[in-house]
């Protein structure tokens, strides 16, 4: 039984009234056209006329029920409020551990490790080319003892740890973490957390230093999905987190953000199916990490549309029936690229609005940025304020009282439908370009990204897109912020950690296992069992990563701009 919105209304009368009313606007508006951040033209007002063929149960429904537009749980925040998971990591594992303890004591409910560029690229801190970056942009996790130090004294059997590290490096870092988890006396079957493991994050969000080719990165990402989830070695672990946040930071719009994310998920699902795995064996653990950007209503509509797209994709394309696989669960991060170096305290306001949009949009887990991020890695004071921003939302605003409060807004429902339609169109465009891996190889995806960079630059520099402190309301006098700097001795500490490990471990065993890994790579088998053995014995990140590079070679992105 369905009920059409506006069924009881006299739509002809509303239409006549609207026509009459719209005359009042003629010549009185500030601009000839109003658009969302994604360039969707919007009218001054939305009415029942915009939803006249809108079938409520089919298009919106109830929370925890298909198509999940109103939320993935029947109770939403009346049952459990979103997880506060602050992404953090710098200097050394010990210093990161201290920051995590502070956040935990202050009410954080999940951990998330930002790793440094060397961890991401499988580099040794002794290497002069990258030595100056040890711990400057994340926590250095080059070996198992580093992982152990990062989570020392924290209740990791009760609280999940997200490792924000991608594909090739993720196979290694996750294995180190799993070994630490077992060495602390826990059963891997109880281990909770996430590997970001998103090849696209380090292809178009950032570029990957000394990268493998996209096809092998996909293979390694799926090795983690297969070993952790399908083979049930770490059944409570989320093996991959499609981080559309990182793509969005490049300047693409909300529609592209979702389309890139879903295209990426499709590529991984198809690869797993190609290995002979069933979708029911792994899809329940596929996670998403979206951006919370500036266009308030568009972001809310984006989250709602994402849930509907995922539901249809799972049901119609993959024939899924299990509700756990149909519901789109996601984490958000407020958009770092919207923060300004100029008048940095203004960033506090931006972050709060972005977080509010995500909370209204029904997010499951949240990271709020710090106001000083356009200047440096966040200081302790700035991180604490970001944490408190979420706590004010949770405790003081009462937005947690009612599920999907924007549902039924003529504008939001119309915009949700509009975004969904545009996402399907863009997914078709990516498919025509050969799918995600192919479009990375041909450079098509890089062209889409660089054209976004340039469009945004032109819009900001022409003043069409207005940013307080950049192209309007600028001030001459800036209050200087205290810049947070990471430990300058981090490289020495990490080199010593590796030297000590190499002196203590069974180097012959490591050699044998590395030879074994070469064979595994040559035969294109799942690397995880061997990497688990290697990291247990004390192999460092670079030794394993270099084996991948030796066998499969390095790949350079085809960047056209």
């Amino acid at each position, binding site marked *: 039984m369905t009920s059409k919105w506006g069924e009881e209304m006299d739509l002809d009368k509303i239409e006549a009234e609207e026509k009459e009313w719209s005359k009042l606007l003629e010549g009185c508006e500030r601009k000839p056209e109003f658009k969302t951040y994604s360039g969707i033209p919007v009218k001054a007002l939305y009415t029942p006329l915009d939803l006249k063929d809108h079938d409520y149960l089919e298009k919106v429904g109830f929370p925890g029920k298909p198509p999940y537009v109103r939320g993935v749980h029947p109770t939403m925040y009346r049952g459990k409020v979103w997880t506060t998971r602050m992404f953090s990591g710098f200097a050394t594992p010990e210093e990161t551990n201290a920051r995590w303890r502070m956040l935990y004591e202050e009410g954080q409910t999940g951990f998330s490790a930002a790793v440094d560029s060397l961890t991401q690229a499988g580099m040794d801190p002794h290497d002069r080319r990258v030595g100056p970056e040890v711990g400057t942009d994340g926590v250095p996790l080059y070996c198992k003892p580093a992982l152990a130090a990062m989570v020392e004294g924290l209740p990791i059997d009760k609280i999940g740890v997200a490792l924000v590290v991608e594909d090739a490096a993720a196979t290694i870092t996750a294995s180190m973490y799993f070994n630490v988890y077992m060495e602390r006396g826990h059963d891997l079957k109880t281990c909770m957390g996430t590997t970001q493991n998103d090849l696209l994050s380090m292809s178009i969000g950032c570029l990957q230093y000394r990268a493998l080719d996209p096809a092998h990165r996909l293979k390694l990402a799926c090795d983690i999905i297969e070993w952790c989830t399908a083979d049930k070695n770490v059944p409570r672990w989320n093996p991959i987190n499609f981080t559309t946040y990182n793509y969005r930071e490049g300047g693409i719009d909300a529609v592209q953000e979702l389309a890139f994310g879903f295209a990426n998920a499709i590529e991984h699902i198809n690869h797993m199916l190609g290995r002979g795995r069933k979708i029911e064996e792994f899809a329940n653990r596929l996670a998403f990490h979206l951006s919370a950007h500036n266009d308030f209503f568009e972001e809310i509509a984006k989250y709602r549309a994402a849930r509907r797209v995922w539901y249809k994709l799972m049901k119609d394309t993959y024939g899924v029936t299990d509700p756990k696989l149909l519901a789109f669960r996601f984490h958000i991060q407020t958009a770092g690229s919207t923060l300004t*170096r100029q008048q940095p305290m203004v960033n506090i306001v931006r972050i709060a609005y972005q977080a509010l949009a995500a909370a209204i949009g029904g997010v499951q887990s949240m990271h709020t940025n710090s106001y000083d991020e356009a200047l440096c890695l966040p200081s302790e004071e700035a991180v604490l304020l970001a944490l408190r921003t979420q706590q004010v939302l949770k405790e003081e605003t009462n937005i947690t009282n009612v599920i999907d409060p924007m549902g039924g807004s003529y504008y939001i429902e119309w915009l949700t439908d509009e975004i969904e339609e545009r996402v399907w169109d863009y997914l078709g465009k990516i498919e025509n370009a050969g799918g995600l891996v192919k479009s990375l190889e041909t450079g098509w995806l890089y062209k889409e990204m660089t054209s976004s960079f340039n469009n945004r630059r032109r819009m900001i520099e022409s003043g069409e897109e207005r940013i307080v402190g950049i192209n309007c309301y600028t001030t001459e006098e800036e209050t200087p912020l205290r810049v947070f700097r990471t430990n300058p001795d981090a490289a020495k500490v990490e080199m010593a950690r590796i030297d000590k490990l190499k002196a203590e471990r069974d180097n012959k065993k490591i050699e044998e296992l590395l030879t074994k890994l070469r064979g595994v790579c040559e035969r294109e088998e799942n690397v995880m069992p061997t990497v688990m053995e290697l990291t247990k014995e004390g192999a460092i990140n670079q030794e394993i990563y270099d084996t991948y590079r030796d066998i499969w070679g390095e790949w350079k992105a085809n960047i056209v701009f």
Partner: protein
Amino acid sequence: MEGVIRVLMSKPGADGHWRGSVTVSSAMRDAGMEVIFGGFQSIEEIVETAIQEDVNVIGVSIHSMAHMAYAKELMDLLDEKGVKDEFIVVFGGVIPEEDVPKLKSLGVMGVYGPGTHTAVIVNDIKEAFAAKAAT
């Protein structure tokens, strides 16, 4: 001043934040400069490419806070090769204001943080290029 300004745009280290380097490269190209996009390069590779390609400007984009170390290495190597005066060196990225004078004292001509209008970068380079040509 005659001639097209040639620029090498590089990223030393392993940090992969690339949006700034491409955005500024596009703006330079739009302003009539010739841009060689070096991408990830070691300091040695940057200097080698700059000499081989006979560029006028070396642009370095860094978002990892390791700018002081890389700047020192770069300027020392240019000095060692006796070519320090041949290039206009500019830095961009997440670089604290208080480090700008330190970078300039090493011989870096300009330092551009997030939110800088690309016209400022282009104009500074054009002026420095003209001044250099005049000497």
